[in-house]
């Protein structure tokens, strides 16, 4: 297992909330795809049924953090400074995937964009823009 893959697995396995969502990730080289299998406890709207919007936002935020863990060794978990989620389509009772792109990593702040989709990558269900505080020190 590569060092990046080890860091990714460590992040996924040590974060209780990642386990709560049931989220996993696959790594091909340095390209990570996060996977959120459909599960009844994720449903926000039982009539459609659709995955809760908050869960999608949370999944995207965790995907962004996982991508940061792939990119570099983190001395501590990145702290979310702010995030914006845009909802494009309902996420139906299917597996949801996400990929994150790290736009900038500075000494203190990282900017990450992420995108979630289900069957068609070109038809995303939600988009994320996020800033994280890195490294030691007070938040």
């Amino acid at each position: 297992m590569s060092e990046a893959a080890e860091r990714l697995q460590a992040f996924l396995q040590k974060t209780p909330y990642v386990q709560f969502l049931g989220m996993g990730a696959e790594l091909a080289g340095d390209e990570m795809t996060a996977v959120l299998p459909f599960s009844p406890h994720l449903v926000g709207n039982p009539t459609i049924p659709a995955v809760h919007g908050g869960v999608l936002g949370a999944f995207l935020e965790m995907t962004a953090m996982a991508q940061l863990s792939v990119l570099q060794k983190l001395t501590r978990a990145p702290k979310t400074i702010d995030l914006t989620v845009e909802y494009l389509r309902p996420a139906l009772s299917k597996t949801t995937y996400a990929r994150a792109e790290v736009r900038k990593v500075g000494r203190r702040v990282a900017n990450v964009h992420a995108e979630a989709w289900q069957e068609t990558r070109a038809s995303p269900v939600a988009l994320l823009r996020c800033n994280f505080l890195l490294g030691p020190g007070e938040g």
Partner: protein
Amino acid sequence: MSDAADLPIDFIERMLQSPQCASLNLQLVSVGPARVAVRLPWREELAGDPDTGVIAGGAVTTLLDHVCGLAVGATSSEGTRSSTLDLRIDYMRAAAPRADVTGEAHCYRITHNIAFVRGQACDGDPADPIATAQGVFVLAPASAS
């Protein structure tokens, strides 16, 4: 002043019964005109960092998304359905370890199609929130006029 009988209490309670809400164990704190407060009880499973026991940002995101949607719901006596279009969250600080988090939201403007909402999440003092939220919701077609 609005009569409590005008508030869609049953609607709000039904909206808190979705599987994700039940699995987070979200508890209704209060309902007012276009205002709702909900508590997310802390538990180990929701921690973002097992070393500190601080609740995951993702759980707070779901709480804020949901309470903002409920505030839209509380704008009419029969309850208004909506979907999140855009949600922005600023995290001021980490929650206290093992602390319950309360989310509150106010729908301050509603048009035929769109609702604008502000919210915040606190682990104690409402004057010292852990996060603030700004959301835009699109009303369900049946609710739009």
